[in-house]
């Protein structure tokens, strides 16, 4: 199941529509890493609202995705983790260390606005 990646200004938004297999997740990671360069994006939002489970492979792939896009010049923020999913994740020790998270798409956009502005003003 392909994840649509939408371009919105300087950001790319990957909106997950259904539960993903491991292969789908790897595809998503590679596609985003490639498109960040192609569209010269400054930020990436991955919306996981529909996911009701997040296993170790998924959280590791998302972490890798965040680190890969950062190396290619875009900040990634994961949005829409459900309370139950968050609780289950921390119990399994999957805390998405070093990855930014936000409540939903709106918060994610606000977060990226703040973060990229800070970076532009500094650089």
């Amino acid at each position, binding site marked *: 199941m392909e994840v649509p990646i939408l371009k919105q200004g300087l950001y790319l938004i990957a909106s997950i529509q259904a539960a993903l297999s491991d292969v789908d997740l790897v595809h998503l990671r590679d596609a985003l890493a490639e498109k960040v360069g192609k569209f010269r994006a400054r930020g990436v939002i991955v919306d996981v609202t529909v996911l009701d489970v997040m296993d170790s492979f998924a959280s590791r792939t998302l972490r890798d995705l965040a680190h890969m896009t950062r190396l290619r010049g875009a900040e990634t923020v*994961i*949005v829409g*983790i*459900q*309370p*139950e*999913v*968050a*609780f289950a*994740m*921390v*119990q399994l020790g999957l*805390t*998405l260390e070093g990855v930014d*998270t*936000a*409540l*939903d798409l709106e*918060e*994610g956009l606000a*977060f990226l606005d703040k973060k990229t502005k800070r970076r532009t003003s500094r650089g």
Partner: protein
Amino acid sequence: MGDQKVKRTEDRGRGDSPARVMPPPDDESTVSLLRELVAHLRKDSTQLREEWARRITEAKLLGAMTSDEIFAEATAVYDNYVEVLETGAVDALQAYARDLSERIIPRGVETDEVVGIVLLLRDVLARSLFAKYQTDFQLLNRILDAYEPAANRIANTVAVGFVQERERIIRQQQEAIRELSTPVLQVRERLLILPIIGVIDSQRARQLTEQLLRGIRTNRAKVVVIDITGVAAMDATVANHLVQTVEASRLLGAVVIVTGLSPEIAQTLVTIGVELGKMNTVGDLQGGIEEAERLLGYKVSPFTEVAQQPI
């Protein structure tokens, strides 16, 4: 089922006097001896009851009750006691013990007092048996063989009934504490506070976390202040749960500030080596809210016109 219970209590009663060597049980004669015993105890009941009440007062037991009350309860216990000796069925006594416990526990009667008065009665009755049968040592011996296990069983029943009642009360109170909901309150747009009061066990900690995560979502909170001023102690399990709560909140995009850690809890956390790097802590609730406002970009300043007005 009832029979089983009686039998078990009886075994325990016998086990309580290991120093004495039991003669092979002779049911026929035991029954007839007990009958004789009961007749004796019924005949002298007034005198023995008074003796018992006197001994209770002397031993300064049941200080929480008046002497009239003691006498009334003593009468009831005495009748039950003799009845158990007669019939061997402890059900009525069990019910009475439970009822008695229910009445006297709230008045601060301790376990040792309850056990003490039953043992006193046992003593008073045994002495009266000694006085009555002192001429015939053989008979006295056999009377005691019949009396002792039954008396032990009674003492056991009353003590167990009392302790069970206490445990029931404790369970009930635990339930009540668990049901006291912990509110998740919004103080400002996107700022929640979660004041925690009382003892946290892992079940309550889990419930708190779930409530908080749901609260973050419905209130779209960005900052949460968890105040644990009212928490007396914390063990490793609960501390780790707190850390998990902080991490789970972060996954929902909220920053958690923990306030009001007492010196004892701070020491516990350091000793058990909780990863404090992930925890954002501020001394008290006021400081926590101020820090949260700073994170949210609020600036609170006094309204000078009001401040200058004479009160």
